[in-house]
């Protein structure tokens, strides 16, 4: 069993915490993991991505080959589309549908969402609306993770346990909020 995941977004959107939780869950299953991150200059509002590979067998490369990713998890629709060449033909895109516009030539949103829908295997999630509706504060990224759960090859409970472990030090309220967000994401169709 092996899952190659590309996480993407804009610097500061919290893609690395999603990676941490999946990584932790994979480790709890005695899986192997490699997670390449972007540090440094790009974190200043530029595009950021992380290659996360989890597998029951040893993993050689830190990077995912083009056409080989099983899932793209993105906090931002254009950033999801950026990595399309990395996605396998059967791969899924799970992305926020809310654009983060910090450049003057940001593409037309409708065209962008249409391009994503054209891929077929896609979950477009209005994270802003869901977060507001359920009062989820800063846990939007956990909604996204919950919506991804079925594609990771890991039992949902391992992800929930991982959320508990990672947020434990921040108190019960934060843990519960993030678990709630994870469940809402899981229920998203």
């Amino acid at each position, binding site marked *: 069993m092996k899952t190659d995941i590309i996480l993407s977004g*804009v*610097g500061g959107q919290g893609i690395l915490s999603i990676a941490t939780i999946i*990584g932790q869950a994979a*480790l709890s299953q005695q899986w*192997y*993991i*490699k*997670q*390449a*991150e*972007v*540090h*440094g*200059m*790009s*974190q*200043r*509002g*530029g*595009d950021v991505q992380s*290659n996360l590979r989890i597998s029951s*067998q040893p*993993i*050689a*490369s*830190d*990077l*995912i*080959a*083009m*056409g*080989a990713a099983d899932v793209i998890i993105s906090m931002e629709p*254009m*950033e999801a*589309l*950026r990595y*399309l*060449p990395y*996605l*396998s*033909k059967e791969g899924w895109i799970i992305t926020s549908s809310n654009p983060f516009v*910090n*450049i*003057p*030539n*940001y*593409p*037309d949103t409708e*065209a*962008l969402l249409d*391009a994503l829908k054209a*891929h077929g295997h896609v979950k477009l999630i209005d994270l802003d609306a869901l977060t507001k509706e359920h009062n989820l504060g800063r846990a939007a990224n956990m909604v996204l993770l919950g919506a991804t759960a079925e594609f990771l090859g890991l039992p949902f409970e391992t992800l929930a346990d991982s959320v508990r472990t990672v947020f434990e030090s921040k108190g019960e309220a934060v843990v519960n909020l993030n678990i709630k967000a994870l469940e809402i994401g899981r229920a998203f169709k």
Partner: protein
Amino acid sequence: MNKKLLLGDQAIAQGAIDAGLSGVYAYPGTPSTEITEYIQTSPAGRQNRIHHRWCTNEKTAMEAALGMSYAGKRALVCMKHVGMNVCADAFVNAAMTGVHGGLVVLAADDPSMHSSQNEQDSRFYGKFAMIPILEPSNQQEAYDMTAFAFRLSEELHEPVLMRLVTRLAHSRAVVTLGETVEQNALNAPARSQNWVLLPAIARRRNRELIALQPDIRRKAAESPYNAYTDGGDHTLGIIACGIAYNYVMEQYPEGCLYPVLKIAHYPLPENTIRRMAAECGRLLVVEDGQPFVEEQLRGILPTPCTIQGRLSGELPRDGELNPDCVRKALGLPALPVNAASPLVVPRPPALCQGCGHRSVYEALNRIVEHYPEARVFGDIGCYTLGALPPYKAINSCVDMGASITMAKGAADAGVFPAIAVIGDSTFTHSGMTGLLDAVNSQSPITVILSDNLTTAMTGGQDSAGTYKFEAICLGLGVEREHLHVVTPLPQNMEEITRIMEQEFNYRGVSVIIPRRECIQTLMRKAKAQKK
């Protein structure tokens, strides 16, 4: 067994701690910064059992580490690849003095220049200094090799260079930790004369270092980190260095059908390579960075076998390796790929909202507009982003400190006004000496020392000169009436622009210090206080 999920950088740091490290010396630089940060926040670091304060630049770091080695203790120096240029004098001469306590120099290269101005390959420095080089291929090796490097350094009485690339430095995997070693006791070197590199002694040391080469080569040839694996098909032999090995093995999950020589310890194991060349008609060299190995194999005279790699075009001449280009070089068909969407546009990094540098460039542009002949020499840091829209405010960015000295040279040539923009940490790193030059020759330049009280680009490390800049500038001879401190906020725009214009017109050295804390460190502190 003790296991940890670690970045390549952190694996090096943990390896050094477990190997009885007494001091880490470094200046922050992507992708090496996390090594020192890990040691600083480790239990041994917090209890101050390991010296871990940031240094002013890579040269002071290298020399301090050499001093710790002189005293018999194990020291680690970490830097990004271009830091090797800054400490090159100390580095090369550390091979001439030799070392006492183990000395490991860690250079983190940045192929593809994710956060750098060039993609120089640090392995050339190791060869230049005639010392062993280690290049881990994965996080576990990064951990294991660090202890190995310290032992090797003490056996040979020479520094050992470890080379990382960004992709390993910033990638996580599970590492199994090994045994821990106590720190060395304080003890004096046996041959204390070696450390005095007067020409007569240096000539002797040079001959000794040359005489040590067969030993250095033998240890590399016998190294557990250079591994030859035979394959049934001898039409091709693969030489894969460091992380490149992973990209090769990724293509062959069931095992490679060709012979593979994995190199992680230099000098090159010559006999194994000669044997491979004799057995295989063709060799493919896969290495991240510059064609360091390929050039050595190729030479300029005809070789009995075909050598392929970055120079022959099988692999790209520049940029970091990846599974795709390695797959192509191995003659394997590409996977079916979705076409890139034409809608996607680049999203370059930008100065943060609320950053003081923004107000600096805003003011600068307002004045420079009236001086079409003005040239603004920039430097290395977050504020280099001032080169991009909307500001497009700087005309150069070369190396740490070059803003001041280039402005001086341009002013000497007649450029007016010649303006330098430099950050606080870059100024203490390499700007102070240039400012002294400018003062001594009374060059008409204005230095804008944009002080955000931190080393911001690399994540907010301590800056060596915080709260000392007025004293430093005055001490270097800047006149008090031409030294100004301002607060870069939009509401102060009138004052800042007035001072800028006044000083641009002064025919001597002036320094303007816009000072306001980095918005990132400020927010982090506010968040920590809330907890």
